[in-house]
């Protein structure tokens, strides 16, 4: 499968400040989470992808088009939802949609039809006929998402799409992102600080730190632990259970309250676990293979950055 975005030794400097430092990366189609602490270079990377700022050095391609060339062609295939509260003053929601669609080349009637269609998809109701400057934060968020979608892009760049949304709307937003990616093959670059959102919808993760790529890969690979282990929860005290397992030749890494961290795959030790439970008269509540949490990965990347800076 050809890469969606490919960058080679890409550098962007603002005077003396290096925002992106020789970045080389490849992003596959699908939903990719773009993470990083403040000042990591996420916004600059997005602006470079959109052709809003020129690069200092390096090459790359997006959707098969060379970076920095054919910018208009590229932008007509990318939908961008900015993090900033931005809107076109004096227009209603549907007028904003119509204007955005017309700026992408649609005629007036088609732009209006498409605007209504996308607002329906985004769950906007009669508020579309109100001026945007009277909208609440959540409504503006929905409108910005709709504006990014109106011209049917192949790549959606979403900057903090769930910020300011209530839990129900947040779930709906994540669901829309999944639908667009799964059913309509629209690739998504999701830039957010909300890690559960990334875990919920992303297939790939890219973590930036101090203008460099810290971690890049598929969510599945990154969350897979190096040494196989599993978490076991029992009904009573875990210490006695731990001793029983160790007597049966199983390594217990950690014992805390009613849970144990056990080395190996759970299916290898099924019999011994049930035997130990029967012997102690305890109930096994859950057996779950261990996984690296995204939070842990993110913190590691940030700490590496801080160490590098100091």
């Amino acid at each position, binding site marked *: 499968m050809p890469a969606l975005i490919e960058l080679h030794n890409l550098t962007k400097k*603002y005077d003396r400040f290096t925002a992106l430092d020789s970045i080389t990366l490849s992003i596959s189609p699908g939903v990719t989470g773009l993470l990083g602490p403040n000042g990591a270079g996420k916004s600059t990377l997005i*602006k470079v992808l*959109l052709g*809003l*700022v020129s690069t200092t050095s390096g090459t790359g391609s997006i959707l098969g088009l060379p970076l920095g060339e054919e*910018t*208009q*062609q590229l*932008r*007509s295939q*990318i939908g*961008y939802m*900015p993090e*900033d*509260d*931005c*809107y*076109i*003053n*004096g*227009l209603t929601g549907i007028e904003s949609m119509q*204007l*955005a669609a*017309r*700026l*992408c*080349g*649609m*005629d007036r009637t*088609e732009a209006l039809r*498409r605007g209504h*269609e*996308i607002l*329906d*998809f985004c769950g906007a*109701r009669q508020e579309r006929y109100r001026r945007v*400057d009277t909208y609440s934060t959540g409504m503006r968020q929905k409108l910005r998402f709709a*504006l990014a*979608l109106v*011209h*049917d892009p192949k790549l959606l760049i979403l900057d903090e799409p769930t910020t300011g949304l209530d839990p129900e709307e947040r779930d709906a937003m994540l669901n*829309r992102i999944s*639908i*667009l990616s799964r*059913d*309509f093959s629209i690739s998504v670059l999701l830039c957010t600080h909300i890690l559960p959102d990334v875990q919920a919808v992303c297939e790939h993760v890219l973590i930036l730190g101090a203008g460099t790529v810290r971690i890049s890969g598929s969510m599945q690979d990154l969350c897979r632990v190096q040494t196989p282990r599993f978490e076991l929860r029992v009904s009573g005290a875990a210490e006695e259970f731990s001793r029983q397992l160790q007597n049966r030749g199983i390594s217990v890494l950690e014992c805390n309250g009613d849970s144990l961290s056990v080395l190996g795959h759970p299916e290898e030790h099924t019999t011994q676990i049930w035997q130990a439970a029967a012997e102690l008269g305890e109930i096994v509540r859950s057996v779950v293979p261990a996984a690296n949490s995204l939070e842990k990965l993110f913190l590691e990347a940030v700490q590496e950055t801080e160490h590098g800076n100091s």
Partner: protein
Amino acid sequence: MAIHNLGYRHCEGQRGSHRTRWLVLTENGIRRAWASAWLRRMLFFAWLPSVLMGFMIFLYEQSESTDDPFTRAFIQMGTALLEPGGQGNMQPSGMLGFLREKDDHPGETRHLFWSSLLLTLFRRSQPFILIPMLGVITPPMVSQDIRSRAFLLYFSRPLSRTQYIVGKLATVIFYVLLITLMPALMLFCTGLLLSPDLSVLTSTGDLPGRILLASLLIAVPAASLSLMLSSLTTESRFAGFAWFSIWIFGAFTAAILSNSTWGDASSPLKYLSLFEVFSEVAGSILDPQLASSNLEEPVSILAVITAVSLAVLFRRISAPMQV
């Protein structure tokens, strides 16, 4: 879910050319500006002088078709009363003079009379509508886009910064032409319709071109300057204040310096007043008696104003992207 909600669907429609995207901005800008009741009132008042001048053309042409001395005297008295006056030595020779000379050189006199009326329109009436009109429509045009960060929405689409500027400029130029080019052309057409013979076409055929040139030389620099001021702030009232200040303080400063011991009426200091610059340009183009006058200086000033304004405007629009 609403029953008409079809969910997401791909959009298969034909897309227009990238090159005409600025027209969308222009159309949107014209529509939004038209929503202002103040603008509509000003446009109404902008057209009133041309109606008055149309009536003067009517009287002028009527004076030829009647031989009754009483009627002729009455028309002469009427045109004398309507004479705008105050044009100093640029005024041909007064309305009564036109009528006296008319019988001897009908073509030349008609041209002189029409161009004098047009000059009066450009120099004496339209600037007083142009200034408040641009003071109403242009201050929010860029400043509000900066304030609401609309640039991210515009420039993440297939719209270049140049197209953005062209789109905004075209909106302002449209309204300026609506109070300069359009009434002047209407006046010209009124004259054609009221003229007794077709020789009017040959005697006044150069006027539409002159009207267009004078209108553009006013519209483009005025639009560039007003948009540049709008781009310098996020508060549109400050842009409006700066726009009025440039005209008013410029006129006062030029008047004071020109009357001082080290200045005179021909001093270049008079160009500190934009009134004077626009007036010189319109005068040089529309009044054939001043064809030899110096057009270079005021046109150079307007060219510099336009170039600097556009450069600042481009820079200000690019600035939010650099953060």
